[in-house]
């Protein structure tokens, strides 16, 4: 995929090649849409998790994290007014990021508000929230507001841009899959094929079942080893054009499967969005144009025809 006579040439081509920005802009919309749904779910938790009568008091948090970090709650007495104020700014900035209005400053605001909420009660958080902060931070450094955005309508935006920001997000995705597979390989249940059995027997993660299959030891073994193979492939082979599209497809099926059987809120959706970063600008442009053509065709037909 990448040819170069030296490491430096490879580095230069890999990070500084100029490409159009449709794929990272599409990712911005996808990512911010999930963030917004997550936000809507979380807004009703202000009293229990972030207000003055929250599960963990602000004084405990301040005692445990006395060092300088991104948490606006440390500047306040933790009142409801303050928590709702931050929530309001957070919501508005997710919407402006979604529509690509003042994109970079909007994403910075999203990150600060998000990190503040997360660090207000860090013990509540799981991998989904680490992913939210990590990727939103990296998104700031990408030209994700240059296409499919209000910014690009209001003012002229450069069509081509060096891909280093997008590459960092792609590398982050690889690191996630490879590290998780590496750690799993150190455990005996992943090697002997029983890990999926134990994971699906955790009562708090249970969602739907698949009759027969979830009680078939042969299937559970296949699912365990299949997970390892797929995670290693998604972290490595996805960089090669021969495997990229089929791995993205398999990855999406894999994450939807986990979502169906287990409840790990939002994580699978964030990972599906991240797999789309590996689609090329041309592929995204083609898909968007196709969708627009279908919408246009539908809008020109009478209503009953559309329904039928």
């Amino acid at each position, binding site marked *: 995929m990448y040819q170069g006579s030296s490491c430096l040439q490879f580095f230069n081509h890999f990070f500084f090649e100029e490409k159009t920005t449709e794929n990272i802009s599409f990712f911005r919309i996808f990512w911010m849409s999930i963030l917004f749904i997550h936000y809507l779910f979380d807004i009703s938790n202000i009293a229990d998790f972030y207000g003055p009568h929250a599960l963990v008091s602000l004084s405990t948090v301040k005692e*445990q994290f006395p060092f300088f970090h991104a948490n606006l709650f440390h500047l306040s007495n933790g009142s409801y007014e303050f928590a709702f104020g931050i929530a309001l700014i957070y919501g508005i900035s997710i919407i402006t990021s979604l529509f690509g209005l003042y994109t970079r400053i909007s994403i910075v605001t999203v990150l600060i508000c998000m990190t503040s909420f997360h660090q207000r009660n860090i*013990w509540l958080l799981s991998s989904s929230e680490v992913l939210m902060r990590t990727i939103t931070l990296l998104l700031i450094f990408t030209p994700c507001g240059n296409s499919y955005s209000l910014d690009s309508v209001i003012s002229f935006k450069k069509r081509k841009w*060096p891909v280093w920001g997008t590459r*960092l997000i792609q590398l982050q995705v690889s690191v996630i899959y490879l*590290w998780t597979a590496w750690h*799993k390989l150190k455990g005996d249940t992943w090697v002997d094929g029983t890990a999926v059995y*134990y994971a699906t027997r955790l009562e708090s993660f249970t969602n739907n079942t698949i009759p027969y299959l979830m009680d078939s030891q042969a299937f559970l073994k296949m699912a365990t080893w299949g997970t390892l193979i797929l995670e290693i492939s998604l972290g490595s082979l996805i960089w090669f054009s021969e495997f990229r599209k089929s791995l993205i497809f398999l990855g999406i099926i894999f994450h939807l499967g986990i979502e169906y059987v287990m409840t790990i809120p*939002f994580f699978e959706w964030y990972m599906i969005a991240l797999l789309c970063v590996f689609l090329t600008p041309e592929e995204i442009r083609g898909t968007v144009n196709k969708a627009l053509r279908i919408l246009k065709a539908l809008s020109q037909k009478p209503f009953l025809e559309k329904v039928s």
Partner: protein
Amino acid sequence: MSRYKKIIISFFIFFNLLCMLRVHLPLETKLFSAIYKPVDFYLSFFSIYQDWMMFAKNPSRSNSFLTADVEFVDGTFQTFQFPSSSSLTYGEKYKYGERFRKIISESVFMPNKKFLLKDVARFALRKLKTSHSNKIPKKVYLKKHFFLTPLITDEFIPHQSTKYNYQVTTIYTHEVI
């Protein structure tokens, strides 16, 4: 792009790669600790230490939830059950179920996070106060309900089984008065 800009961005790329690998490469030599200093500050500032160890090395076998028994001055008791994912709807799990699971099973039950117990007991007290405002609370007992999935070689538990026999132990007593 100018050469200087490229050099600065290259340093930033290298810095970010170190951030991604920091937890997995704890090479504590003098050189690396110097390199890691700004990396650690950056990771702490945004709280983005990443280990990606979900269900690794092995998935946990422990099922647990928490209740708070409040003893009132008149000798009566009332129990508050912290939301437990197994009894919640799909939407409730998304909203707060996973968050309660996380803090309870991975922090409240941990010996190194005992500083959370007082806050958690007071939270339960506040929740019960709305329905028992006329009673004076005396003590709050935090109780851990615990069930370890047996080894597959000993007993095969069918998916979505209701055969979970939880054991109960009191992990903390909060004196209100």
